[in-house]
């Protein structure tokens, strides 16, 4: 709104009077110009979400692990008793060893096969897009569903794999896929590899596509063969991406629950229990919430060390 200044003559000078909301806008602008305050405002929703869904459950978990809480009973502080009890528990020791074994081999297989698949998919061939898309299927299907399908395939009585191998003359007696501890663990590793390999392949493929083809061409001109080109050109450039994928995979595999729960339930005789499934059996099925929380917290320092070492190595790589 524009008005002549009071006492002015014939509207020679016209100025704008302050808008009623202009003062508020200025205050808001001043507020937003303060970087610290603005940062606080922008971060608040994230902090709230992280606090509610990450920090609170985590702190509750730590408290449970330090208490003798059982289902329906309020716990009392017992210090590290639950951790000591778990450490002394032979099933826990087995689950602890199993978790490392399972994570190590599943990660190795996922990396090796994922890399191989990524190198194949990096070439040009007919139907490349279709193959790339279908490769993601194991990763897209809900784990529970796909694991149920595997469980049926490994069924002790009606296994289609046993039937196929028997009919083709490869076996004369059934392979105890899930009824033998050693076979059961390798079956779980195989299913985990099947499910997780596409994640490795697609991420490594993205990494491969950022490598300048000129480098390979130059190496070829220098007489490098396929393996030498991979080892001296591709691998060093792919290492940072690979490390990130491996870190993610270790975290996911080490804390895996769904696959083992559905495929073997931790059996036979605890031979395939992982820390997550054993923590669930103790905490949720048996109702010893404090002890279950302590078992699951054993994962934390291990994962922390793994992540810290790998990220440190990654930083060194980036600095080099």
């Amino acid at each position: 709104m524009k008005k002549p200044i009071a006492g002015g003559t014939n509207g020679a000078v016209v100025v704008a009077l302050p808008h009623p909301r202009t003062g508020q806008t200025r205050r808001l602008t001043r507020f937003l110009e303060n970087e610290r305050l603005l940062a606080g405002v922008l971060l608040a929703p994230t902090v709230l979400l992280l606090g509610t869904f990450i920090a609170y459950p985590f702190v509750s978990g730590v408290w449970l692990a330090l208490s003798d809480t059982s289902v329906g009973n309020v716990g009392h502080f017992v210090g590290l008793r639950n951790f000591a009890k778990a450490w002394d528990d032979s099933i826990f020791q087995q689950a602890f060893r199993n978790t490392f074994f399972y994570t190590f081999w599943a990660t190795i297989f996922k990396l090796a096969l994922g890399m191989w698949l990524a190198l194949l998919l990096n070439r040009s061939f007919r139907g490349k897009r279709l193959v790339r898309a279908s490769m993601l299927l194991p990763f897209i299907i809900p784990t529970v569903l796909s694991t149920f399908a595997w469980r049926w395939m490994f069924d002790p009585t009606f296994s289609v794999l046993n039937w196929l191998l028997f009919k083709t003359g490869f076996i004369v007696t059934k392979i105890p896929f899930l009824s033998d501890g050693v076979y059961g663990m390798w079956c779980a590793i195989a299913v985990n590899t099947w499910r997780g390999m596409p994640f490795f392949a697609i991420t490594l493929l993205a990494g491969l596509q950022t490598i300048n083809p000129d480098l390979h061409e130059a190496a070829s001109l220098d007489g490098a063969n396929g393996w030498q080109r991979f080892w001296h050109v591709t691998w060093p450039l792919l290492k940072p991406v690979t490390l990130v994928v491996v870190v993610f995979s270790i975290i996911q595999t080490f804390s895996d629950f769904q696959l083992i729960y559905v495929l073997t339930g931790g059996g036979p005789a605890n031979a395939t229990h992982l820390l997550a499934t054993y923590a669930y059996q103790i905490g949720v099925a048996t109702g010893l919430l404090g002890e279950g929380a302590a078992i699951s917290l054993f994962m934390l320092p291990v994962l922390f060390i793994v992540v810290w070492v790998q990220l440190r190595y990654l930083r060194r790589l980036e600095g080099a």
Partner: protein
Amino acid sequence: MMERRTFLKITGVAGILAAHRAPAFAQGTKLHLLRWNDFIPACDVTLRQQLLPEATKALGAEIQLETINANDLQPRITAAVQSGNGADIIMALHNWPHLYKSAMADVTDLAEWQAKEQGGYYAQSEQAVKDGKRYLALPWSISGLQMAYRRSWFVEVGQTTWPKTLEQLHQVGMKLKKKGRPIGQTLAHTFGDAPAWSYPMLWNFGAAERDRAGKVVLDAKQTVESVKFMQAFWKDACDEGALAWDDTNNNRAFLSGEISATLNGASIYIAAKRGQDKIKDEKGEPMVRDIDHGPIPNGPAGSWGYHIPFSHMLMKYSNNQKLAKDFLKWLHGKETFTRWFEVAEGFSVGSTKYWEQHPMWNKVDDAMKIYRQAAGASRMVGYAGPADAKAGEVYSKYIITDMYAKAVQGMSAEDAVKWAAAELKKIYG
């Protein structure tokens, strides 16, 4: 145009206002009942389609039934108790009510009424739910477990009657396995068939978890003998794939002709009978005609079974305590229970001896009559100590079952027993 007064009259709101209280149905009177997926699906159908709609009418409240896999019940109970929210009434197996006792409403009045009305509980039904003088849950039924077997296959290897001793069963099992017809018995982490097989193996060799004073006595000669028997029996007579079986696998294996015998509730026989058009033996005859039942044969110390008690727990957090008790009294009363009991055809028997005299037993097939009094020959988890929460913890961790499972996978009998005894001492103290 309808007047305000007419509207209130027609919709019944005037009555509600006059009474100064909401009608029964509008008070949030909705009961949530959580149970397992029954192995006799017709039992769930009867509950859902007949009994619960009648309860809804009789009690003026909506009764909602939810059924889930029995192996998922314990996690659901834990989640419900910790959140203070969930089903008002939850079905329990074994002695689970002891594990969750602080979250259970006291149902002593109902339990005493039921015992009085129906002639006193079987020992395991009472032990499963009674803590001192207080009843933690209301006994519902017992699932009797007997060994279902293929009569003609046993005759083919020279066994014309059900073996009387475990050693005889071992010998006949060897012959059957050689013919590709092994005995099938789970030793996996599954709620019913595994403990119902492994616990009696202890008792029938004279072994026990604890003595009457509560001291762990598992590490004993009798236990080692029992484990050694299982090792030999497993290798010579059993389908070794059963280490990964849940409670449904033996049903499927038996009905498809893969195994010759298995310890089970009567669900195999009942499924074969109800599906006799489809479930045939190798000669094309209905398989049900060739199925019979026998108890776990005698060991050196007798023939005990573990016949699983079921109960209904009224959760303390429920806002519908009065209604839930009314419903339980209605459901567990003779008139209602008898209708469910008849559909179960012996798969589930009552928690009291009264049901042994029910006229249904005169109608069932001969092969089913063994279930009539089976529940009386049962011991309880934790034996010879009380079936308390610690016994429930031992069960939930599958320590007794795993002792046998470890041994049949190659651990020496002595080491398996020592391992289990050490685990028991950590729990029982």
